[in-house]
């Protein structure tokens, strides 16, 4: 691994410094923290109440309108699954590529992944008509002798999301073990107990490291194709359908790129306040941000290219339905959604070509938020607009408007996500201790170190 200091980290940063700085983040929570947590829980309550209404009276409370039978809920589902992607990308793929800069940010990203999947997983359950029968989608032996239909992309989804949640969770836990051990050795009181248990008796012997680092490698190797597969499967929910605007072979790569794009944006959005709050400027440096920005730029360009492709093929195919669908998309009643998405996702990130902007954290923060919005609208456009705008049948078209129920559930999902995230960063090291150390130059004899 990198023998010399990673660019951006000062020589003050020693093993000890790393351990203590990160351990400090677990210290007594500030008022600001509780305000944030309170806000998150409040949002969650809004969602829960809305859900109770939906269960009692039916999905009619949401804005659905024939033939728009999927709308905000599925939009949010895809949005959150997308968010979930950068985490595993940064922790697994970049790990395989041995890129040093990931170490400082991957823990946050990974936590984000887990909680985003947790959030996404709720939406399919909420959006089905008879939520109390969701378990019929699971292949369990039952009295009727019925099984789910494995030809349905929804079942693929179920398996993909389930696997993704499990794997990313264990991946997160694995990464945590040595760090929890490190914190354990500094902690006192109930936290000591907590970390003693959660560190599973980690002592950092050569044997432990030997199995651990190999295992971690294999996990990464498994997670990498998983990341790519999961959003491909999600995209197939649409690509397997014959709806014009859905039925496209480009969907898998297009969605994966989009997912990573939105994921990285979300990482920036989350990292910035944490960095400030916990004073991690020394560990999470502009260098890291710049790399994230570059990743955004890459994936963003892929997404932009995909947009162009879609419209080009719609024209090139000469298929009247396809053409109509995309004309409707751009100039129909939903033009505003479409153009929001195109501006936020395709044009805004072009600013990142400029190094000044790329290295300006505030600018990045703002851009990242716009990208998040843009990506949400991308899903909205793909799902709602494709269904609304004359899918084959000239007679069947409708204009759909979300209602309070849609927004309520969506707000709840954000509350749910941030609640978990905030709880995590206060109780577990939000930056990997051991891996940050790895990329530091190891202490050698004859080197003078300031203590």
């Amino acid at each position, binding site marked *: 691994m990198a023998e010399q200091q990673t660019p951006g980290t000062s020589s003050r940063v020693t093993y000890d410094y790393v351990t203590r700085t990160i351990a400090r983040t677990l210290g007594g929570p500030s008022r600001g923290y509780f305000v944030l947590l309170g806000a998150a829980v409040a949002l969650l309550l809004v969602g829960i109440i809305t859900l109770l209404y939906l269960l009692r009276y039916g999905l009619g409370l949401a804005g*659905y309108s*024939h033939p728009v039978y999927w709308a905000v809920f599925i939009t949010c589902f895809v949005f959150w699954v997308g968010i979930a992607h950068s985490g595993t990308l940064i922790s697994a793929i970049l790990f395989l590529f041995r890129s040093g800069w990931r170490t400082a940010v991957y823990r946050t990203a990974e936590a984000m992944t887990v909680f985003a999947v947790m959030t996404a997983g709720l939406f399919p359950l909420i959006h089905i008509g*008879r*939520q109390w*029968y969701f378990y019929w989608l699971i292949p369990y032996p039952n009295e009727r002798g019925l099984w789910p239909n494995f030809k*349905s992309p*929804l079942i693929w989804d179920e398996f993909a999301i389930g696997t993704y949640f499990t794997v990313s969770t264990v991946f997160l836990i694995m990464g945590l073990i040595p760090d929890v051990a490190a914190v354990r050795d500094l902690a006192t009181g109930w936290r000591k107990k907590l970390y003693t248990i959660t560190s599973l008796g980690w002592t950092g012997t050569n044997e432990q490291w030997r199995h651990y680092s190999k295992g971690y490698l294999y996990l990464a190797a498994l997670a990498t194709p998983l990341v790519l597969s999961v959003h491909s499967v999600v995209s197939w929910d649409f690509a397997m359908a014959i709806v014009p605007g859905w039925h496209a072979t480009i969907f898998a790569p297009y969605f994966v790129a989009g997912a990573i794009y939105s994921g990285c944006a979300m990482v920036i959005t989350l990292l910035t306040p944490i960095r400030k709050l916990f004073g991690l400027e020394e560990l999470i440096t502009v260098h890291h941000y710049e790399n994230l920005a570059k990743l955004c730029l890459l994936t963003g360009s892929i997404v932009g290219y995909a947009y162009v492709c879609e419209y080009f093929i719609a024209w090139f195919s000469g298929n009247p339905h396809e053409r109509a669908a995309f004309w409707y998309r751009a100039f129909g009643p939903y033009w505003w959604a479409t153009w929001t998405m195109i501006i936020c996702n395709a044009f805004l990130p072009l600013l990142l070509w400029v190094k000044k902007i790329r290295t300006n954290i505030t600018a990045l923060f703002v851009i990242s938020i716009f990208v998040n919005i843009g990506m949400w609208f991308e899903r909205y456009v793909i799902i709602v607009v494709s269904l609304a705008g004359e899918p084959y049948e*000239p007679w069947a078209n409708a204009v759909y408007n979300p209602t309070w129920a849609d927004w309520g559930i969506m707000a709840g999902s954000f509350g749910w996500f941030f609640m978990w995230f905030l709880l995590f960063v206060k109780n577990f090291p939000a930056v990997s201790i051991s891996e940050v150390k790895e990329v530091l130059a190891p202490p050698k004899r004859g080197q003078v170190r300031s203590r």
Partner: protein
Amino acid sequence: MSDSIDRRRFLKVLGVTGAGAATVSACGIGPEPTEKLIPYLVQPEDQIPGKATYYATTCRECAAGCGVVARVREGRAVKLEGNPESPINRGRLCSRGQAALQGLYNPDRVPHPMVRNANGTFEAIDWDGAIQRLRAKVAEARGKGIVFVSGAEVSSFGDLVDEWLKLVGGRRLSYEAFGFDALRAGNRLAFGTATLPTYDLANAKYILSFGADFLDTWLSPVEFQNGFTQAHAFEGGRSASMAKFVYVAPRLSLTGMSADEWIAARPGTEGTLALAMAQVIVSRHLARQPADASRLVGLLSGYAPSAVAEAIGIDQDTIVRLAREFASSGGGLAVAGGMATQYENGAAIVAAVNILNYVAGSVGSLVKFGADSAVGSAGTFADLVALKADMDAGRVALLLVHGANPAHSFPGAFQQALGKVGYKVSFSSYMDETTAACDLILPDHHPLEQWGDSRPRAGVTAFQQPVVQPVFETRQTGDVILQLAGRTGTFKDYVQGKWRTLQPRGRTPAAGGDQFVFDAMTKGGVYGESPTRAVRLAADLSAVAPRLSTEQKGSGEDQTIVVFPHPVLHDGRGANKPWLQELPDPVSKIAWHSWVEVHPDTAAKWGLATGDFLLLRSKFGAQKFPAWLTRSVRPDVLAVPTGQGHVAYGRYAQDRSANAFELLSRDANGYGGRTFVVAATATKTGEHRKIVTTEGSPRERGRGTVEVLGVARAKSLRPGQAPFHHEETPEYASKAVEWWAERQHEKTELGNYRGEHPRWGLAIDLSKCTGCSACVTACYAENNIATVGEDLMQRGREMSWLRLERYWLTDEHGEPQGAVNSPMLCQQCGNAPCEPVCPVFAAYHTPDGLNAQVYNRCVGTRYCSNNCPYKVRYFNWYNYAERGGKYEAFPEPLSMLLNPDVTVREKGVMEKCTFCVQRIRGAQNQARLEDRGVRDGEIVTACQQTCPSEAIVFGDLNDPRSRVSQLAGDPRGYHVLAGLNTKPAITYLARVVAQETPSHG
């Protein structure tokens, strides 16, 4: 017969629990609640639980007198179907007929007699008390004016009322909101007879309608539609089909949609056009003239096309062309009615059209006099105005109203007049406007609960018998009258007595009587030939010309408002039936509220958008309606439907939109009729509403949803040709697709893919479909489809499994010349896109080729609907069966008409058409019991059964001899969106139109 009623009483007891079960079980999760089982006391022979019994009776929703067969299960009437024996409707039925059930089980019926008490509100009263009261009132009103207002009653009941009135010295006024005064007056003008003729549409070779909406509500719509399609359809079941149909009217109505050509003549000039055509025919000797045609020369001289074309608003070549076509067709039939007969000069227009028929030699052949139509018997509007005057003058001491609602169709004036009447009695079993203003209510049985009959035309008597036990404490008005008259026996005896006299001579009434009556009842009536008699031109035709002249009245900015009868709500009597309210108007596709039709050019002038409210202010009243922009109306005309704007009449009708009758003149016109055209100012109110419409794109845009052929091209097609296959995938691709599909089907090794089972299919002939939407209501009735109400329908939540898509047929200027109506329902695809995406196999392919939907397995992911290119799957957003729920679709006792063979769907499940699978299974069970196969034609879907134009055929596609598979091979046949390789089971037969280059882009 008497004990048959007793039977049904006990059946009803069981029926109620049954109905409970149907709904409860469907909306409850988990196990059934324990029910009580109530056995019969006496075992009815003609009822087997779980099996339907059929009773023949007569539909009284309008005066046409169609025969119906009521399907009764456990004492509940669950479906009405046309009676094949009836010469009127030949086993077919319209939406309004289907919806009669919702009148029977209407939750807003008057449950028992009521009397107005001291503080002006109604209170219940027992029958004896009520009749006592009435008897007293009659006694004191003797000589001070007793008037009985009834609907068009040409029936034994009418006779009885007349007999009784003679006794007590009163008079009867039978009133229809849309009278036929102009027809009678016009016929008198032309032929000196005031009777109504019968029109033989079926044998016409060229049909020219001057505003006559014979497919909407005019005279006998079902009969006319059946005849019309025989004449007009490409293969109407007779050699020379495809009679051209030209529609002359200021607005394109449901009838107009079937037209090959639309002549939007200036309102009131229809007669001029008719005479101009007659002039051409006579002057150019285009047809063999009747002897006395020469007498017309004088009259016609003033009507040379060149002279009148300007006034009519079309160029004279068109007039000449029409005249030539009409005369040379050798069977031209011109019909004047509807709008054309509701102008000031309506009578003259009728006369003019008569003359046109006369010179073309159609009178006597296609237009037969002699069989006076029942509705004709209605009194004129003048009579009603006179009555109103009498009432105002206090010359009416006792007013009895039965089967009419003048307070709604003659609002304001009549309402006030009612106040001045001594005592007002209503026999209506609904709290309509008139009833609400009465002092005493003696609710009559619903026609399906009562004995009675109707004489739609001379020679035909349609019988009415009770099919169910009365739902409420109502009593047959006939019986009440008999009691008042102090006569013994029930009305049933009275009616059957009359029926006995109908039997042919030579048989002694006493002996054969009962048997004769019984036989007739099983057939639904006595159907004899109508007498015909020849007519000659009236001695003096001088009156025609002057009355024809139309002087424009009203100031410049005044608009011409045309008030037309709503195709299903008619004069408003249908407004209390949710099925009819939720049924989109066939032309505008607007439901639950009324509207004003505005031409886009006019709208552009006023900066008006669809949904903006227009305030129409005539001399007589003002009302505001949301605008609907359409090219199907003349730019200088605004059209408004009647039907809505009730201030009473139950939860479904009350306070909906506005009452168009308010705008109309309160005085009778020259010929004693009512003028439905009025000058009014139109002003934007600035208000706006989202109109409740199911309309998607009004143009089909060549998407392959509907196909249209020119008649010559269609005739040139030989069997085996397939002109629409270019719609399919290109040759190279289709080969691959075919091959792949075949491999797959072999691999499936199941069901109809191996041809062992039937493959149920449908053939729909678009050249027959008129868009009347009877099939839609039939589907609602058969399949327990929930009505969702106005605000949900506004959000596109309607559940109509079968919808009619109306795409305009336009001429080269993009002006509509008519429309193609395409019934869109589940296509039961062979390669159904909806199936593989369902995660729980709720949607799957049955061995007999149905695209089944297992409601109780569905979890409601709605993926199937997304993946359905036809968009014919509908989702239960709420629990529409929830007792007392906000969106309850079947409030007691409406739930009594739920079909026990069909599951009532729960909240959160997808539902759709499955070709009436319950009927298929029923037939299969029966066949199995009799150890035979299912015969072709044995299974009839609800939509097919009711279709008045016989456009739908159901059967087994795997059976080469079945009618449907033969039709599927028709060269006109095509599959909707065939390019998707969904292999639909429904074959559409292309619409055929007269002009050679049809455009529906």
